[in-house]
């Protein structure tokens, strides 16, 4: 006779966790409209965190690099996008969806371009001398983070900056008793597109095959004739660009940003990467959605526990699965 874990494994295994969490919250919350609003908010938050965390997970998994400076890309992404949106304020506030969209596209492209360039610089100048040395990696990336925050302070100042949202993303859609913010739907959709893109690249292309193999055994990939150091640069650049896009989306979500944004998000990003399992995009998505849903449900049900909710979630998951929900095979 099959036991329960085998049946659950066949039905989806750890992927059922967010469903279980949502069902449990439905029972506890009682009000379907509130539950639906919280669930959508949790999913969109999860997708934005996924954007920020996916690069870190790949960088950690493939390159074995503890990059505490990852949050600098989040902060810079947010500030660069905010600056572009501010410069294009005429388009942002226009009644034309086309002009709104163009402002958003330029803001995201600026964040991506910055992330790619900064990622290349960071890997070449800061990370490369400290490969295989975790202690020095922590020290130098923490140092780089402090320098980055000071650069943001010097360029944008210490006072909070208001982020303009493109007009077509303002407001909400009302579905019965449920109010759904358009921006959250957009954030969810963008995160989903990024996930599908990453998934296809990792699972349907030769580059993706190399990245997945490199996460498991770098030395063997080189022994097969591939220069993994070149792959490292590419992964680092893409990971940094994803963080910058995540930062840009988060800036629009918060609408008021400070130079501490990246540092504040970094704790959540690390929790997601640890919960999901290092080096796995599917695990990162799962971890991000769990974190997003938990933060919203707990914030509603037990506001005093909201700050600790993700730490509690991480503790429970690590006690159950010390390597995370879906780590890459090592």
């Amino acid at each position, binding site marked *: 006779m099959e036991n329960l874990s085998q049946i659950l494994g066949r039905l989806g295994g750890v992927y059922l966790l967010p469903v279980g969490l949502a069902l449990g919250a439905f029972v506890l919350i009682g009000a379907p409209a509130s539950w639906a609003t919280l669930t959508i908010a949790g999913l969109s938050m999860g997708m934005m965190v996924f954007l920020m965390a996916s690069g870190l997970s790949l960088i950690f998994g493939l390159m074995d690099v503890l990059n505490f400076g990852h949050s600098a890309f989040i902060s810079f992404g947010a500030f660069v996008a905010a600056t572009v949106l501010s410069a294009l304020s005429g388009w942002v506030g226009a009644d034309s969806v086309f002009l709104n969209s163009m402002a958003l596209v330029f803001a995201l492209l600026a964040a991506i371009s910055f992330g790619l360039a900064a990622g290349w610089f960071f890997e070449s100048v800061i990370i490369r001398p400290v490969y295989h040395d975790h202690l020095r990696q922590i020290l130098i990336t923490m140092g780089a983070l402090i320098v980055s925050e000071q650069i943001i302070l010097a360029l944008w100042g210490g006072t909070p900056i208001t982020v303009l949202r493109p007009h077509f993303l303002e407001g909400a859609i009302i579905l019965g008793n449920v109010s759904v913010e358009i921006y959250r739907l957009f954030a969810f959709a963008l995160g989903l597109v990024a996930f599908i893109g990453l998934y296809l690249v990792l699972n349907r292309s030769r580059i993706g095959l*190399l990245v997945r*193999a490199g*996460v498991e055994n770098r030395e063997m990939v080189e*022994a097969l004739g591939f220069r993994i150091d070149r792959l490292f640069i590419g992964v680092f650049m893409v990971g940094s660009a994803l963080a910058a896009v995540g930062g840009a989306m988060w800036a629009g979500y918060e609408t008021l940003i400070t130079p501490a944004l990246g540092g504040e998000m970094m704790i959540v990003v690390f929790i997601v990467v640890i919960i999901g399992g290092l080096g796995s995009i599917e695990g990162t998505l799962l971890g991000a959605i769990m974190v997003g849903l938990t933060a919203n449900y707990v914030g509603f049900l037990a506001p005093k526990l909201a700050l600790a909710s993700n730490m509690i979630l991480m503790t429970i998951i690590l006690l159950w699965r010390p390597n995370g929900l879906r780590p890459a095979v090592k």
Partner: protein
Amino acid sequence: MTLLSLNNMKTDIGQYAVLHGVTLDVPEGGVFVLLGRNGAGKTTTLRSIMGLWSPTPGSVTFRGADITGLHTADIARKGIAYVPENMGIFGGLTVEENLILATDKGRFDQPRLKRIYALFPALEQFWTKQAWSLSGGQKQMLAVARAIIEPRALILIDEPTKGLAPSIVAAMAEAFREISQSATILLVEQNFHFAKSIGRDMAVIDDGLVAHAGTMADFAADTELQERLLSLSA
């Protein structure tokens, strides 16, 4: 004709000197076996050839070209395949993905693939399975298949029979005989009976130096030498 030459190869791992000056010529064709006690430096020799550890000083010459100090990937692209002691398969990838990763252009040469199926039928059977789910013998077959999925002049194989069932060891010996018809195998092996059954030439490494080199037939006949160099009883 010499395919690979090691000249006074010295390799340090951290603060430990492991190879103290290995000098060896590996002729083209057949199976060349490196024998030696545990910790003698056999694996270090293979890893130094692959550039995974840098020999300093000393040189490695392959097909007449100096490959000392080249990046591991560049050494591999010169036609040297490596099957490490831990097999180095990618457990999260399927059998097919493990093999396709080792192809030059991302697609299989069908006659070559058929030859691999003939050598290792289990691989065809478990083609779409993730490699971590294979048995130890099947993983070893996959590791060897990956080394021959493209034509390679030299295949370095580190202790392929370790922990394998006798029936798999026999199949592996048969496969190596066939592979050595078209490529040279440099094999590190502790199982002397296995080595004797397939080796044409051999060398014994002891304490980071070549203590003896010659033909396997001569060495197999000299029990006193075996006892002295490998502590084997007749």
